């Protein structure tokens, strides 16, 4: 029986070397950035042996840096840690709320944004707000680092662009312009602990007179990957984000969605509700941007 192995490299170089070595030998390797998805999958879905590379001991994946123009969030920082940072919450309230929505207090003690993104679930809660905040993935590999927009990172259900030997180091976000705010809402049948049945994130910028000058809308759990819905953004831009505009954005989201029926929801339900969430999230973002 080829066994499991566990390694916790203490530096980025060491981690990259480890991954390259495994890739070279064709050995299965998996990165542990949080553990809340990986350990469940090892138990319930696929328990075949592999090397687990724990990247939580690496300084770079734990770095949180709120700069003058942009913010860097290390891939392995637990959601609970992020949500204890008041400055970060003030800058990206929707993004931080989405991290706060993932599972329980216990889950948040482990789950990371990097892990949530790499897990590449259509229902990953932090992905829509990352996208509307124009997030950039910082990826390390043996050839150095590269950058990629979050909306281009996930390639399908459970798959992403990372090549063998690459690590997602963290996420970079431009700090919001004045009178800009984000919001994220998801629908679950209970108040907590469920996977999103549908989710919608909105980030918008208001002119002094309240006219929306820029907007991004992304929806989750209603297609194989999170969708950036330009038509919904267009429905908001140039308006005062009034009920008419909100209804138009909602319709655009419902129309853009291509959901499935499964144990968590039906096509009809998801279509309708993703519009409702977009409408409500946009109203929250509007109120935040104007205050």
């Amino acid at each position, binding site marked *: 029986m080829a066994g499991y192995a566990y390694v916790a490299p203490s530096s980025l170089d060491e981690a990259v070397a480890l991954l390259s070595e495994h890739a070279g030998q064709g050995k299965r390797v998996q990165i542990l950035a949080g553990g809340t998805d990986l350990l469940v999958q090892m138990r319930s879905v696929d328990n075949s042996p592999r090397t687990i590379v724990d990247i939580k001991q690496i300084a770079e994946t734990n770095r949180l840096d709120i700069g003058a123009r942009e913010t860097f969030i290390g891939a392995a920082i637990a959601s609970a840690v992020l949500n204890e940072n008041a400055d970060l919450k003030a800058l990206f309230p929707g993004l931080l709320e989405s991290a706060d929505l993932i599972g329980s207090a216990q889950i948040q003690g482990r789950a990371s944004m990097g892990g949530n993104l790499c897990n590449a679930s259509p229902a990953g809660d932090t992905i829509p707000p990352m996208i509307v905040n124009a997030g950039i993935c910082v990826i390390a590999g043996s050839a150095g680092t590269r950058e990629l927009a979050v909306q281009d990172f996930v390639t399908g259900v459970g798959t992403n662009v990372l090549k063998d030997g690459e690590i997602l180091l963290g996420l970079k976000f431009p700090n919001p312009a004045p009178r800009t705010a984000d919001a994220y809402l998801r629908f679950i049948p*209970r108040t907590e602990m469920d996977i999103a049945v549908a989710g919608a994130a909105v980030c918008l910028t208001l002119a002094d007179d309240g006219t929306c000058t820029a907007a991004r809308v992304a929806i989750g759990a209603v297609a194989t990957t999170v969708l950036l819905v330009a038509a919904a953004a267009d429905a908001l831009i140039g308006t005062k984000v009034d009920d008419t505009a909100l209804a138009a954005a909602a319709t655009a989201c419902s129309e853009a969605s291509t959901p499935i029926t499964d144990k968590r929801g039906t096509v009809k339900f998801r279509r309708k509700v993703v519009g*409702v969430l977009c409408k409500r999230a946009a109203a929250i973002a509007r109120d935040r941007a104007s205050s």
Partner: protein
Amino acid sequence: MAEAVDYKYIGTSPIRPDGVDKVTGRAQFGADLNLPNMLYGKVLRSRYAHARIKSVDLSGALALDGVYAAVSGADFPEVQHGELGGEGGGDVADIAQNIMARDKVRYHGHAVAAVAAKSLSIAEAALDAIKVEYEVLTPVLDLDEAMSENAVLVDENCFTKNLPETPDKPSNIAAVMQLTRGNVDEGFAQADVIVEGEYRIPMAHQGYIEPHACTASINEAGQATVWCCTQGHFEFRSMTAKVLDMNIADLKFIASEIGGGFGGKTVIYLEPLAVLLSQKSRRPVKMMMTREEVFRATGPTSGTHCKVKVGAKKDGTITAATAWLAYEAGGFAGAPMGPGAMAIFAPYDLENFHIEAFDVLVNKPKVAAYRAPGAPQSMHAMEIALDDLARELKMDPLDLRMKNAADEGTRAPYGPKFPAIGFKACLEAAMAHPSYTKPLPEGAGRGVAAGFWFNVGMQSSAEVHINENGTVTVVEGNPDIGGTRASMCLMAAETLGIPYEQIRTLIGDTESTGFSNVTGGSRTTFATGMAVVQACEDIITQCKARAAATWGMDEDQVEWEDGRAVPAPGVNADVTPLTLAEIAANAAKTGGPLLGRASLNAQGAGASFTVNITDLRVDRETGKVDVLAFTAIQDAGTAIHPAYVEGQMQGGASQGLGWALNEEYIFDENGVMENASFLDYRMPVASDLPMIDTQIIEVPNPSHPYGVRGVGETPIVAPLAAAANAVRDAIGVRINDLPLSPPRILEALD
């Protein structure tokens, strides 16, 4: 005859004697026993919902390093049909086949083999190395389809029971029952208003947090010890003995602390497997189910399809009612259709009714008892129909129920006349309750519903040992699932007249105390409590004799008062009363240690009624329900430990609300449960619920020394319809099926 009286200890809520161990992590539950040289057992489960087993090849597993034993159906003795396997278990041959399939698998997750290995990871690898050849059959998953004429048969040897003549053709209908009174046609002809409906509820699970687990060890003489979490170790012993064809005397069962059961731990799953694996490996074997296994392979309760029709006069008097009740049994017979049928109209005084019920095989897990088995499903239908009837009649729904309420002397639908019961008292309390009279919050809906459970007595044993300092050890045989040690101590304190703190209750194993039936059916505080009270009375008799001997009097000149022996009134004697401690200290000189005992088959369990009131708000754009308030009013007879009575009411309400709103077994077209995890089988979490208001009504049960009725079952019955009626009130649309999940509500609003 018990009256509502002021007791000294009964009716107080002291800290339970086993409490400190449970808040510090010391208490040992089913999976907490580790023995030297212990192996881990795991079960291989069927990937198909319906298939014939052509062969099971264990050799691959046995060849692995670290694997010590492997078994399949062929290793178990043949068990004859016909005998009952304990409370809730059904036919013992069915139990035997349910825990290990022989020729056929009847549901996805059905056990087909088991292994014992030196670690869990090796045991799991061993399961992968077992080869099973199946002939895959079409599964029968839909209740109506299963009942249809040419349905695929789950069991080719199933001939419907309880018909006037045994049918000549097998079917999936394992049994039927009917209850009739008066003439329903005439009754409906007298009605001014008739309502009717069809109601569907999917399977739901008990959802106890502790998965099934046990550790078994057997010696070379064939004497086995089994440590397990169980609602009844005596019945587990008897079922295991039958399944393995062992002598009961060779089986010792020790009940660990139990992490919830709600009926689901009244039947065996792992225990015989662990004994057999231990026998083959000659080592102790520990087996623990995963949560997924609990969902796929242990008893949920039945999914149902019910039809109810009720007719009434303009003044609300019900003139006739009919019910057609189909219950899924799962892969083996034994759905709780009997109690469901007997309960559905029990709160009401009806002259004309007809009830038909069906126990139907489908390729799903074999159902097990779940809190008031069968009643929540059937009463959901009736209590919705009554809500609709009240609307038609423009009558208050509680007034309608009061108009027809059963009372002392009413003939229950299942035959006998009720003794003193508390249904009207519950209705009166509900009508006056602020939860019912206060204005409804903006946009919310309010629903009410009634519930009922018979409660049972059955066999219990108890011993009372007086320690040398006068403190007391009560020994009984019912696992403490929700604070019953505390209620035993309270009843003993009241009877003996000594402080609660001087008494401890322990749960004996099958070799150290007398037989008791399961902790279930709300019988422990009632029946085992009755045995404890009688054992204490035995002690009092002995103490009076010891005091009489000490004082040189006749026994009838001594009375027991406030924990002391005193001369009877009128007896002129210059003696100092003797306390229990003093009598105990002198026991060596008066006949030796004091030991009281009692065993009984308790009769006269008192029916328990309830009324629930709930306020809900529905998000009309998403269909999500928010529970704003919930009030449970229930007749407990006498509340021995009120805090734990409230706890039963609150816990039952929470389970009922979960069932009403989100819980359901979801199967794919192959009969594979799609949501076998706590992530997707959505039980209520703390943030889903408000505080649950309780009002305990006390109409003492005349058959119990302190007036106890059972309280554990009834609380789950009414929340299903109360929630459905509140949703109807909130959105103006009636939804007959459960759960009231957001997609279903949104669909109804469209």
